[in-house]
């Protein structure tokens, strides 16, 4: 506020000077200066951004139009091959199935993360002080476990020989015999474990954000609705949900990006196995690029990956921006 006022004061003085007979020139210079100031202020950030992110991105894009394998790396050769890398991956049925798998995986993860996060947020809102603290602590702990550590823990939980999950299921005894049951012998089952891990780690962020959002909704709205005889579901559907719509949007949006490009959990769990059945785009790029030393193709895979993500998310961003402007 004080800054705005000072700006207005500074704004006035040259005008006064101008009126006293000096030509209008200093006035335009200062106002040009004023207009440039915000840009100058963000210049360091923008510069750092361009150097640290823009330059590597440019290299990746350039690389995707080159034949760049290990031999080119060692011999310092640059071979431009136009769209050949893109042609190769788009013509590869394996790549297409990886793309479809990545989308399905992302949708499942985002839906479960948002769903579970919402339920926990509603729970937090209704809990007493101490239980709320306990649940919050548990959520923070789950959230703060590093991805690799979490993956290793889940691997051990679901280990076919020594895992506590098989032991527990056997002890309960209601679901049949789980002795030596392998959770990692099919793609679907392995994906289920990975999803469980990722939702467990991602839901706390969603829950805390929504919980904060719920707190900002005025209590009168709820009371009025209840007086009118609305049930729990109706209250959620007609008050909580519309009030939190922008929040849901941004959370879905962020979760989609995170889950779409996730690497660590999938790689640590089974390196894309069994039999490549849990290979998503990020894993695919790594397999081709690092294990296969085909850097050009891997760059093309990365570019396609970002393009796909953009195509899906652009309408989303637009509606998000519109909602915010409307609000």
């Amino acid at each position, binding site marked *: 506020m004080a800054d705005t006022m000072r700006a207005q004061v500074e704004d006035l003085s040259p005008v006064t000077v101008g009126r006293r007979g000096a030509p209008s020139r200093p006035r335009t210079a200062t106002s040009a200066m004023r207009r440039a100031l915000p840009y100058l202020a963000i210049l360091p950030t923008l510069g750092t951004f361009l150097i640290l*992110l823009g330059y590597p991105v440019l290299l990746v894009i350039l690389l995707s139009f080159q034949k760049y394998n290990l031999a080119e*790396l060692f011999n310092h050769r640059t071979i431009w091959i136009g769209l050949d890398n893109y042609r190769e991956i788009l013509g590869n049925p394996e790549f297409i199935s990886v793309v479809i798998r990545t989308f399905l995986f992302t949708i499942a993860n985002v839906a479960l993360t948002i769903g579970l996060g919402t339920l926990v947020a509603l729970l937090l809102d209704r809990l007493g002080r101490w239980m709320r603290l306990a649940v919050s602590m548990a959520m923070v702990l789950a959230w703060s476990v590093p991805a690799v550590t979490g993956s290793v823990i889940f691997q051990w939980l679901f280990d076919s020989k020594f895992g506590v999950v098989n032991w527990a299921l056997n002890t309960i005894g209601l679901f049949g015999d789980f002795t030596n049951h*392998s959770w990692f012998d099919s793609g679907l089952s392995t994906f289920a474990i990975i999803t469980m891990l990722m939702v467990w780690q991602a839901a706390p962020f969603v829950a805390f954000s929504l919980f904060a959002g719920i707190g900002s909704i005025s209590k009168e709205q709820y009371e009025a609705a209840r007086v009118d005889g609305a049930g729990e579901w109706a209250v959620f559907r007609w008050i909580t949900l519309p009030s939190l719509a922008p929040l849901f949007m941004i959370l879905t949006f962020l979760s989609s990006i995170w889950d779409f490009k996730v690497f660590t959990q999938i790689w640590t769990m089974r390196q894309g196995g069994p039999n490549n059945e849990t290979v998503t785009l990020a894993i695919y790029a790594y397999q081709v690029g690092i294990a296969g030393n085909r850097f050009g193709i891997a760059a093309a895979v990365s570019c396609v990956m*970002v393009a796909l993500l*953009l195509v899906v998310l652009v309408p989303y961003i637009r509606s998000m921006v519109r909602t915010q*402007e409307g609000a």
Partner: protein
Amino acid sequence: MRAKSLVPIAFLAVVGLTGCSSAATQAPTQAAPAGSQAAPAGSQAATPAPATQAASSGTLTVWLMKGSLPDETVATLNTQFQAAHPGWTVDYQVQNWDGIVAKLTTALASNNPPDIVELGNTQAVTFEQAGALMDISSQRQALGGGTSNDSATADEAWLGSLNDTSIWEGKLYAMPFYAGDRLVIYNKTQFAAAGIDPATITSKDKMIAAAKTLQAKYASVKDYSGLYTAGQNWYELLQFIWDRGGDVAVDQNGTWKATLESPQAMQGIQDYVDYYKAGSTGPADNDEMNPPEYDIFHQGKAGMFIGNGWEIGSAVGTDGKLKADEVGVFAIPSATDGKTAPVFLGGSDLGIAANSKNQQQALDWLKQLNTDAGQQLLIKAGWIPSLKTAAANIPADNPILQVQAKEAAAGSKSTPNDPRWASVEANNPIKSMLTQILTGKASIADAAKAADQSIDQILNTPL
């Protein structure tokens, strides 16, 4: 509004792009500055060692892997080298196996690479094919490796499969360093208690019988295996496949053909299944390091396992549960009585960087290893030495190495010598195949066929 809505999109595009592709492009990005000042391709070949021969002083950088040679052994070699090259010093650096391929990739591509690098024998071909290493074909004799760079020739001086991994398209790019192989590691106390004489285990059937005898004796021990093996120990599997005369893949005039579905290979797979089903409590869906087989053995829950020589130390451990003299070894028996199975020869080669400025000195350092004294240093470090003559004369005070060298002499092999094999191992279809078979999800024939298809596809992608 339209323009405004584009700002977050542009932002996300940049964040998303770098976020998901940084791993894949790490190597070339780091190498890019080198590329910008690079001389045109082929000029390296035209600048051979003589140009730098006159240098009267300098530093030779040597990268060896952790666990390869004891420090004092390297010190001996370096003192010897410095005595012959006054004014020169050696910068010796120990590298970790974990992540070494990426590290070597960036290091060898730079303009100031380490002069000598140690390469795992299955990794070497990647760098040989890509031109990262100096062509030392003309130095073969001087390095003590005999005369022929044809990998098919049987009379080379170096151990067969180490020699093969040093050659790419008829040229020598590396020098065999040392080798190690797997053997049967057994618990002497348990064998004695069960009344088994390891000398009588001379075939697959006898080994399975011994495993069952041990299991009967130790039935009260929870999760006990007579012969412990993980479900996905594909190194072990390969040995049984070779024993039956099969192979993973064969080179048919430049095209790879995976051959796990050949009758011989399927017989080898059946051998593996028989061993596993004899009573191994190892997980069907995990490999030899999860959990480590030597740990199971250390806890007394296994009478024997097939492991590397270097695993014996870990098997004995330091907590006193198991004493060193309680652990014995014998050669892996073949399915044919009285023979030993061919072994998977692990080990290392030594290469000189193509961009090294000290190639002559590097060659001189390497030559020290192929002397009698040099070979004895390798033996003392616990490795099968690279020269066949030295490997045939392991002193009697080293029984473990004697068994290993005997196995290697009887027949040793490695994975297909092709840079693309690394991609196969990156997500090994052979492991998936074993799990499918052991859990009864697929027959040997179906699982082998599926694995063959995956391997064919990877090994035949264009280089």
